[in-house]
């Protein structure tokens, strides 16, 4: 970082003040007046638009970029609420960075932030261990089903002396391979590093504001390079920015290390409890574009994953049936009289 590197940020108030100075305008009241502006930094849409706008702007992301410095310093503060506020901008950060990475533009600012997030991801995993999941073996009974062992095995078990049967071992699958510490960005590592940062983002997705998730889905569409193929929405992905004629966000290489975390996040947006039709629509569009992209490369994992996601999202929920009302069997006059009595008594 250059000589005007930012002071280390040590409190939410300091972060808010520092951001105000960088953006060069008055902060909304929610930030200026609050004792703890961290939640506002996370949720305030106005601030988010201002920051994202800067990040998308021409010339952003260079080594002396003050906003990148702010993101870096704020995350380094170690204050969890502030770290969430930084994570909120991962879609824009990763989106712009990946799109520009193929060009020769200087992006040291972006890279510094991404690498510090990556380091945190490595540390979170206890020195970068692989993320695994145990897939329960269906041969063992669970709360939901009785296990039916094949007849041959049952006969063999009966022949042995009576002993408590060992449960069949679970299959351990690797969800995300081990992370190695990296201090610098290289083209060969880029996908893995950004992928790990996206996994970090995914881990906190339940806490992220709606606009952050919308940003992400928008970038997915751009990254897939397939937004020309789906129903035209009037303009490309860049139409969301206030200025017209913005740079177009390019199609990027999407190896599995990047594709998988992307799809996991889209899955959350599509199926999760956000209760936002707008988000679901955007996420569905993103899933569709990613599916078309996967079909290009015919990577079996990617194709299957996208297809499954889309099919799950299309599972139509039948409405919960109303109880069927048979004809009322009682004397209506009687019931009306009772009704009047109850409602006037107001017991």
């Amino acid at each position, binding site marked *: 970082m250059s000589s005007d590197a930012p002071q280390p940020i040590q409190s939410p108030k300091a972060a808010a003040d520092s951001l105000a100075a960088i953006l060069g305008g008055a902060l909304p009241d929610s930030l200026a007046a609050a004792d703890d502006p961290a939640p506002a930094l996370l949720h305030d849409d106005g601030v988010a638009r201002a920051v994202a706008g800067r990040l998308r702007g021409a010339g952003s992301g260079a080594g002396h970029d003050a906003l990148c410095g702010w993101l870096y310093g704020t995350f380094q503060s170690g204050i969890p609420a502030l770290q969430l506020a930084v994570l909120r901008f991962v879609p824009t950060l990763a989106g712009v960075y990946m799109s520009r990475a193929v060009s020769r533009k200087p992006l040291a600012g972006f890279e510094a932030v991404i690498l510090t997030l990556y380091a945190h991801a490595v540390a979170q995993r206890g020195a970068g261990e692989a993320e695994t999941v145990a897939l329960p073996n269906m041969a063992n009974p669970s709360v939901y089903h009785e296990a039916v062992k094949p007849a041959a095995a049952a006969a063999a078990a009966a022949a042995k002396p009576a002993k408590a049967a060992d449960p069949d071992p679970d299959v351990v699958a690797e969800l995300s391979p081990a992370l190695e510490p990296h201090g610098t960005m290289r083209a060969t590592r880029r996908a893995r590093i950004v992928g790990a940062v996206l996994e970090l983002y995914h881990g906190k997705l339940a806490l992220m504001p709606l606009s952050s998730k919308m940003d992400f889905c928008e970038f997915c569409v751009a990254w897939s390079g397939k937004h020309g193929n789906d129903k035209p929405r009037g303009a490309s992905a860049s139409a969301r920015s206030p200025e017209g004629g913005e740079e177009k966000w390019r199609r990027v290489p999407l190896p599995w290390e990047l594709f998988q975390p992307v799809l996991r996040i889209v899955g959350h947006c599509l*199926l999760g*409890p956000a209760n936002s039709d707008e988000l679901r629509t955007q996420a569905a569009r993103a899933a569709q574009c990613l599916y078309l992209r996967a079909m290009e490369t015919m990577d079996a994992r990617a194709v299957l994953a996208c297809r499954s996601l889309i099919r799950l999202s299309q*599972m139509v929920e039948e409405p919960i049936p109303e109880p069927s009302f048979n004809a009322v*069997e009682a*004397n209506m*006059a009687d019931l009306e009289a009772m009704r009047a009595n109850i409602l006037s008594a107001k017991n």
Partner: protein
Amino acid sequence: MAAMMLCTCSGDQSKFEEMPRSPESLATRDFSASASCSRTGNRETTPDDSQVNEVESDLRETLSLNYEEARALLGRLEYQRGNFDAALQVLQGIDIRSLKPRMTTAITESAKPRVSPRSSRRKTSQVNGMLVHMSMHSVSLLLEAILLKAKSLESLGRVTDAAEECRTIIDIVESAWPSGVPEGTSEECKLIDMFHSALEYLPNLWMRSGCFEEAIIAYRRALARPWNLDSQRSANLQKDLAVTLLYCGIEEKSTQEFNQQQNMEVWKSTPYDKVKSLHKLEMEAWLDLASIYTKIESWHDSNICLDKAESINSFSSKCWHVKGLILEAQSLHQEALAAFSFSLSINPDYVPSMVCMAGILRNIGGKSLPISRTFLRNAIRLEPTNHKAWLGLGLVSKSEGLPLEAADCFKAAYELRELSPIQDFSEQLPILLQ
């Protein structure tokens, strides 16, 4: 006439001759059972009191249930008209809590083959004029009332309250059918339809009120037993459970915590009496282990096992008894005596403790001998084939200088011991069979 329409379930006309016929009767009558009795005052004949009481109690039960049914019907009407406030007011007057056990019993009994084929057409099951079980019609009506109460609450924005109501339906049916819908139960049963609706509705309500943990429990309840849900609905519930587990911010839980919670939920979703049986089995196991350690004089280990048993249920005769055995084996006779006394204070008929008390008292001798004898005679009265009791009595008689009596007792003890099984499973057998 009006009253007849609603009360045809009893089938016995004579009961209703005493009822006032005015249309207001339903409306103006007080909602408590006792008041309905007061109107049946003037009788022509005066049968003996027990008969009168029988009829009165039948009438009370029949009438008060029909009263609830009337409220249920009214609640349904109000709901259909969209008057959710009024529907709620009406339906809240049904005391579901007191009716729950009868509803559960009725559902359980409905799955069993009927005694008389005719009775299925009556609205109430009656044998010899006595109310046997609530009819399935009544149960369905009341379950519908709870469901509509939940829906009314939902419409009024009280989603959490709606969920609590909805859960009642599942509690009732699950208590009746703890292993799922029994085979052969009619598919067209309206009750099952409502139950299925409730199974889907409950987690939906919890999700909307933001109680994700409750939603997960509700999804699991719906999926953990064979409730005969059709495959589409079942698949949707599975998908929703998976989605909730993955995406609702509960993912930070470590696997161990998650498994622990799963185990907890097995206990929650296991019906209470089954839980009690499992507890009892576990406690028996710990106590047996404690006895074994006592025999080999490992006091430390036997006490650990005893602690485990006590943590399950400290208010148990057998626990105190085993404690007494451990103390006695360590020659702490006074302490052992206290433990056996505790055991008998919980269950005065606990024979093993009687026998052990008697043993210690006999060793004390002197004035304690008659007390010892009394304990042993009580034990023999309760368990005439208990060889240890006979042995004890023989030893007491010998100490009291009664050799002939002693000889008889020893002979009885010897013969009974030859006949008794090596290991007595009579206590564990019911549990093992489940």
